[in-house]
Structure formats: structure tokens, C-alpha cells
């Protein structure tokens, strides 16, 4: 390429800066049009702008000269500039590497500037700051590059032919088949996993089950149980379906009178008070009210709440239930148990 050709094309030698500036302007316009973002287009243009472009422009402004042909491992003082080259220039790898931290620094600095301004950290002011910072760096880079003699300027070129030639053998049939095979296996695995349905071991699908009390202001708290029971107010059984699908439940509520068998607790009397079927859509919650209705007894009593997916057995137990909770009606069941032990 001769200098004559370069001067015939106004953007020759500045294509990289034009691309960076265009990326910044396009993304700025995109944010102005759709500030809520979240679209693939925002990611497509935004990620390179945030991770690479501003830093690249700053590096281009700092190092306008062409990369050295000397070995980088050569020591300072030994790298004598060769014809048409400056020894202190960055290698392409160094240029790329330095661009990355500088980009995030510019993005954060843009945020700091907006924070110091009357505007809030919102898409439009932030996009303006990032775009202006990038364009300022691009301008400085263009000016400094233009100030150098043409043969000393950094002039990146994408070797399209080389890339195409390199890509052909590298994206070989073997490789593509391998990727397709693996994708198929992964897809089959995922489908198989999906059909397996929810299990208790799958912690991405779950049901929350709680016994709470009304806090008097429309909310529910995990507390005030004995006061609620003493006042004859209802206890609230809370269910939240996160199984990923509509799920049928059965809630079994049992009042138990408890004694001891050696060192273990033992249920001496149990009365099933309620058995309710509930069907919840994914993400839906339900609150069931239950009257605790304690009876007179020397032994401590408690509400046992059991949750089953689907139907409950005739003799429900905590072991057979999907979820089990209990709430004591006594403030100190341990003391009560000790008093009635034996």
C-alpha cells in the first residue's frame, strides 16, 4: 500500500477508531430510543462497548504509533527502532490486553461523573457520559495518530482473507460433528431430566410450607404462637408452590398430645382436625387458617401440620409427608414433659 492510496481514502488507517466511534454512537442512540434495555440488541452492542471499546480508544490515544517489530523480550535500550517503527509501541496483544482494564475504568469514571452531576445514574445520562468519553478518547487518538507521519501510525487491519483461510480448516467437519453430538446429548439429557418430574432432591423445584401467625397488620410472622393459641385466634398455614407446574397438595392438620418414652417424645393422643386439598399454580401461594382448639391436658399439646403432594395416606406421619411442621401450644413443653414424665 502506498501513501497515495492512503490519502485517497479518508478513513484509511483510522478504520478501528471509526468502528469504535460508530459502536458508541449506535449504542447511545439505542439507549436513547429504548432506555429500558434488556434486548439482545442492547447486549450485542453494549457488551463490546462496556468491556472493550472505551479502553481501546484510550490505548489508541496513548499509543498512536505502530507496533514495534522488535522482540518484546528484548531489553530496554536494546530495542533500537527499526526503519519505520517506534520501539515503545504496543504489540497487538498488549494493546488488546490494556484495553480491557481501561474500559472498565472509563465506564466507572463515567458513572462517577454522572454521580457528581445533577443527573441520576440512569440510562440516558450514563449512556451520554460513556459515549462522550469514548468519542473524546477516539478524537484524541485520531488527532495523535494523524499527527504522526503516515508510515509511523498504528494502522490495524483485519486480515479477512487470513481469518477466512484460518477458519476453514479449523471449523472442520470433525469439530462441528463433535459439537452437534454433544449438543444432542445435552439436549437429550435436559429433556430426560424435565420428564423425570420434580423430586425432593431437586432443589430447583420446591414447596415452602410454614405455620405462621397473623401480625395484626395483614402480614404473617413466625412468632406469637402461644399468645395466638391462648387468644383462640387461628394459626395460618402457608404454602408456596415453586415446583414449576400446577401442583395438587393435601394438608393434614393434627392436634397431638405428647408424652415421653424414655428420652424420646411420644405422641399419646392425636386427633386429625382437618384435611384440606389445595391446588396451586406455579408461583402461587395460599394461606389456610386453622383453629388450634387446645384441650385440657396435663401434657403438652402441639399442632402437627403435614403436607403431601397429591393425596395423603389414611395414617399420615412426618416420615411419609413431603413437609412437616409443628407448633407447641405451651411456652415450655420441655418443663411440661418433665412434669408429666413417667
Amino acid at each position, binding site marked *: 500500500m502506498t501513501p497515495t492510496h492512503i490519502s485517497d481514502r479518508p478513513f484509511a488507517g483510522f478504520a478501528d477508531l471509526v468502528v469504535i466511534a460508530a459502536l458508541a454512537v449506535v449504542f447511545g442512540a439505542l439507549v436513547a430510543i429504548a432506555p429500558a434495555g434488556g434486548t439482545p440488541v442492547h447486549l450485542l452492542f453494549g457488551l463490546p462497548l462496556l468491556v472493550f471499546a472505551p479502553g481501546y480508544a484510550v490505548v489508541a490515544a496513548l499509543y498512536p504509533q505502530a507496533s514495534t517489530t522488535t522482540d*518484546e523480550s528484548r531489553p530496554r535500550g536494546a530495542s533500537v527502532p527499526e526503519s519505520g517503527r517506534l520501539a515503545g509501541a504496543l504489540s497487538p496483544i498488549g494493546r488488546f490486553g490494556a484495553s480491557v482494564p481501561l474500559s472498565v475504568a472509563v465506564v466507572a469514571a463515567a458513572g462517577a461523573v454522572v454521580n457528581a452531576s445533577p443527573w441520576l445514574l440512569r440510562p440516558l445520562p450514563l449512556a451520554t457520559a460513556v459515549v462522550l468519553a469514548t468519542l473524546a478518547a477516539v478524537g484524541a487518538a485520531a488527532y495523535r495518530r494523524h499527527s504522526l507521519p503516515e508510515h509511523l501510525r498504528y494502522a490495524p487491519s483485519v486480515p479477512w482473507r487470513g481469518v477466512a483461510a484460518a477458519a476453514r480448516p479449523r471449523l472442520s467437519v470433525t469439530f462441528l460433528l463433535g*459439537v452437534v453430538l454433544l449438543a444432542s446429548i445435552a439436549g437429550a439429557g435436559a429433556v430426560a431430566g424435565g420428564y423425570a418430574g420434580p423430586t425432593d432432591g431437586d432443589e430447583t423445584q420446591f414447596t415452602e410450607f410454614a405455620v405462621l401467625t397473623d401480625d395484626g397488620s395483614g402480614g404473617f410472622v413466625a412468632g406469637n404462637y402461644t399468645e395466638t393459641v391462648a387468644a383462640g385466634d387461628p394459626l395460618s398455614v402457608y404454602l408456596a408452590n415453586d415446583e414449576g407446574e400446577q401442583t395438587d397438595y393435601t394438608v393434614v392438620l393434627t392436634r397431638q398430645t405428647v408424652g415421653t418414652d424414655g428420652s424420646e417424645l411420644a405422641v399419646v393422643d392425636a386427633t386429625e382436625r382437618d384435611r384440606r386439598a389445595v391446588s396451586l399454580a406455579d408461583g402461587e401461594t395460599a394461606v389456610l387458617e386453622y383453629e388450634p382448639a387446645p384441650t385440657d391436658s396435663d401434657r403438652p399439646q402441639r399442632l402437627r401440620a403435614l403436607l403431601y403432594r397429591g393425596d395423603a395416606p389414611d395414617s399420615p406421619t412426618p416420615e411419609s409427608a413431603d413437609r412437616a411442621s409443628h407448633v407447641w401450644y405451651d411456652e415450655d413443653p420441655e418443663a411440661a414433659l418433665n412434669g408429666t414424665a413417667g
Partner: protein
Amino acid sequence: MSVLGDRPPTGRFDVTVAIVAFVVALVLVPLRFLSSEVYIGTIPPVVAVASGLYLLSVRRGATTRGPGWTVDGNGVALAELVGIGLAATVALAAVDGTRSVRVLLLSAAVGAVILLQIAFLSAEALDGRLVLLQVLAHAAVVRFTGLWTTPSFIGVDNWTHIVEYATPVMEGGSLAPMAGIKYFLAPVHHLATVVSAQLLGVSLRTALYAVVGGTVVLALILVFAIARHFVSTRWALLATAAFALADQAVRWGLHIIPTSLGLVFFLGVVYAVTRLLHVDSGPADWALLGICIVAVTFTHQLSAFVSLVFLGSGVLAQVLVSHVDWLTPVSGRSVTRGSTGSEESGPVADGGSVCGVVPLHGAFAFHLAFTGGVWAITPWRGEPFIARATQLFWLTVQNSAGFLNLVDSGGAASGGAAAAGSAGLGWLAAYVDAIGFLVLLFVTILGSLALVRRHRSPQAAHTLVVAIGVMLVFAFVLPLFGIRNFLPGRWYAFAYALMAVVGVAGLAHLGRRFPARAVAVLLVVLLLAYPFAMITAQKATLDDPTFEDEWPRYAYSEAELAAVETIGEATPDDAAALFTDHPYRTAFTGSGAHPASAVNFSRADDGGDLPYRRTVYRRYQSTAAPQFLDGSAVVTRQVSRDRVCPPTRNHVYANQGIRLCTRPDV
């Protein structure tokens, strides 16, 4: 020449240091009887072997030929193999829903393929750009499979930085909610995350992972750029891959907090200094250094301190190289440029011109003044950061410092399995965790001795070696005396970057001094052991530990996270703290659900009952590696559900294995 070669030359700095290191290491070997800490038992032998090997190497003449162990393989085919391996890793992680042990082993195997092709492919078959791409792709897959398969955040501090700090900034549109905390003047991480989330229109978590996480991966290129000033392309690639695979580097790619960005800017500082010491630099290089210093200062206090230590090491190296002639025996030689530019010669060879001394004290003074100035006005619990940090340091020195005070070292050897004598698989976990570091240390010692003797920029070589030494003092030696104010566990990643660069210089040195077959065997052993040890190490598997009974899992299931939210909502604001295991307690505090602490079993009464009003049990406490308190000691201990949630308590919340238990009178 005999089999062992000639006698080692006397009076040489490298030889003298190697002899001293060899003798001191042998003397320290009995330390293993004073402590069961893995590193105390293993570091002295590693140092002894490495320095002994170096002494052996200097008896042998150097060869100018290229590496004789390389083979004419097909680099493109290997790249395809790596591509398929990485695709399989992603697929397997998707199927398993986590980075299971088989996912870890597969990604380690792919890492081994990358390392081996770097070491063994002939110069003609080794395409630097293609290999670098593989290294970056592998690093991205290792980190993003962890991030992608883990609900919410990995680690402890992410909750604080995103939920507690960045979220109010995002919602309020201002840094004002951070006023009064020490990150108010170190907000780069939070600003970068918030700005990215606002501009992309995504959640803070997505912005954090995509932009900051992506930056952490791409910044690995800087290691190559740094290493390229010290060694040839092959070894620079090896340094980059070694650092990318290192457990501590993976750690900060999974647990993305200000330390992660601090590491990125630290690499920028090292790169700028490396350029200043190697090439005909100009104002641009000083500007690059200045920008990185400012950026690291406004990102993370500890990272800025590490950067300051590095630059201080550079000044120390400058003084040494300027005033102590015998440190740089090759300086002043009449030399020729020789084959400097060839692929395999590199700078670690006899011959070549020696650079002059570059004054770094001005840069150090700027760093000290700027960082110190910022710290002087940085708030930290009502005091200037620098004043409080200094007070805490002196308090530690006066009150708790003592030799072999090893409690909670928090570093590479942290965790319940750090002691080699642990029961069960504890000893295996401890050694697996240590192998990667020991390999790195082994080659670093070799590289340090080789670089200070032979590198043509003695100042650069001494800077790296001194910096590594000082950083390992902060990471290893100060904790031995009970001084942990400098967060020793955070220093490893920074040191590893330098150790990877110096270490490959050590391997290159061995390659020139020993028969090709012996070097090949050594490389195969090291390059197979290293990726498997590093990828499966504790800090690289925070999301799903390899030894789940030994190492805490710093990530939570969807059910556990839902429980945090629901329990937080159902617990009255004025209620006392919840008690559960560590690290689960951090999910409660970090998410703002409710204050939470670790159960302290020393507070149980004679009947074993805990005095707490609200406790949270999860199945993990009976099956994995939960941490609790026993007095003032942190213990990793499995407990039964009844121990945390006895049946005489109300069991008021149930979700899979999770229970919220309350005292009946609350």
C-alpha cells in the same frame, strides 16, 4: 564434563542464594513436627528440591538449541479437541446442574491438553493466537459454568457488594447510599456493575457476571503480555494458561467482588512497569501506569496495597541493581544481541544487551501519596481508613501476634481440612488443595534463581522476585505470627500472576540445562498434576466443592435462597438474630433478610439445648461441611437436625431439608 557437570561457580548471587535456600529448607523440615499445617510440612522439602535442582543445573552447561522434547503435532486438531472438550464441559454442567466432580475433572483434563500442547508442540505447529484463544475459552467455561449453574451469588462478599451496596445505588441513582462506608471512595466495582446494568437493561447480577466477570477473563491476556517480556511465546503462553487455571484466579472469577477488579488493575500496573523496564518507554507508559494506579486505588484498598508493595519492590530492585554489583553479574558484560528474537531463545539466555536502571521511585511516591491521600479521606466506621487500619494493625501486633498462631489463616490453606492429620478424607483434601501451589512454588524458585542471574533486565527480574517474596511474606509469614490484618488469603491470586511468569522462566531454564527426555518427563508430571490439582482445589470450587465433607460450599440452592427470603419476611424486624451455620448465615445478613450468626455449641446447656430463640437448620448441616463456633474457634462439623432443631422447639418452616425452629415462647 562429568555426569553432574562442573562444580557450581562460587561467588555468584544465584548460587549463593540457592545454597542458602537449600540449607535453610533442610533445617526447616522438622517444623512439620510442630504443626500439622500442610504447608509447613511441604514447603521446606519443595524449596530444598527446587534449590538443589538449580544447583545441579548450574553445574551443567547451557544449550543454545531449541527444546528437544517437542513433537510435530497438529495444532489445529488439538484446538478442535479442546473445543469439543469445552463443549462437553458445558453440556455436562448443564445436565448435572452444577460443576460436579466429573465436570471439574473434564475441565481439568481439557486444561491439561492445553498445557501439554503448549509445552510439546513444535514451534511450527504452535499457533500462539489459537492457543491464547483456547486459554481464554477454557477460563471462560470454567468460570461461567460455575456462575451459570449457581442460583444467586457465589461466595460471601458478593451479597454485601451487590445487595447491600450496589442495589441501593441502582435504585437511588446515586452513590449516596454508600456514603460512610469504605467503598464510597473505592466504588469502581459497584459503579461498573450499576452502569452496566442500567445501560444493558439487565439485573445487577447479570451485569456483574457479563461485564466485570468478562473483564476478569479477558484480562488474562495481560499475563501473556507481561510474560512475553521475560520469556519466549511458548513459555508466555504457558504462564498465561498456568495463571488462568490457578485456583485463586478461578476464585476471583467465581466470587466477583472488588478484589477481582483489583486483580485486573494490578495486572495493568505490572504490565506498565514491565514495559517501563524493558522497552524504550515514553510518557504513554507512565500514563498507563498512572491510570492503573488511580483505578486500583478507587477499586479496592487491599489491591491498592498489593500494587503499592509491587511498586515498592520495583524501587527496592532499582536500588539493589544500581548499587549492588554482585547481584547482577551479567551487567556490564560486553554482549551481542545474538539470537534474541528467535522463538526459543528468549531473554533468559546468556548474551544479549543489558538494560539500564529505570527510576521507579517517582511512580512509587505518586502511588503512595495518591493512595495514602485517598485513604486519609476514606471513611471506615467513623474514622479515616488509614488511621483505623493502622490502629488495628498495632492492636494485633500488641495483643495477638505470636509464632505459629495459625488459627483461621484464611489463605490457600484455610478451611477445616488444612491440617494434614484430619480424619477421613481430610488429609487427601488438604494435599489436593496444596499441590497446585507447591508446583507453582517449585517452578517459581527455579525461575527466580534463573531470572536474577540471567535476565537481561536485572531490574525487572529483581522486581518480580522481590515482589513475590514480599507478597508471600504477607500471605504466609505474617499469619504465622498471628498477623492477619492484611487479609493473607487475598494475596495469593496477585502473587500467582507473578509466580506464573517467573515459574515458566524456571522451566525454560531447566529445558536448556537438562536432557530433553528428563525435561519431558518433568513437564508431563507437572503439567498433568497442576490442572487437576488447581481446578479441583478448594478455592476454585466454592460453588460445589470437590470434597463436600471437608470444604464449605459458598453457594446455595434455589430452595435455600427461597427459605432465606421467606424466613426473613416472617421474622419480626425487632427479633433477635437467627442462628445457623456458616456460610448460610451470610446469605441472611448479606441479602438483608435478617441478621444472623453462626451457632456456637459452647453455649449449649448441660442437656445440649442451645439458648437461641430462632435457629435455622438445613440438610447441608448433616451431610456436608458446615462451619460453627465452639467457643472462639471455628469448627467444621456435621450435626443432626435435632441438635439444631430439637423436637421441643416449634418447627415453623419446612422446605426440603430446611427448617426454621423457634423457641415456643417467641
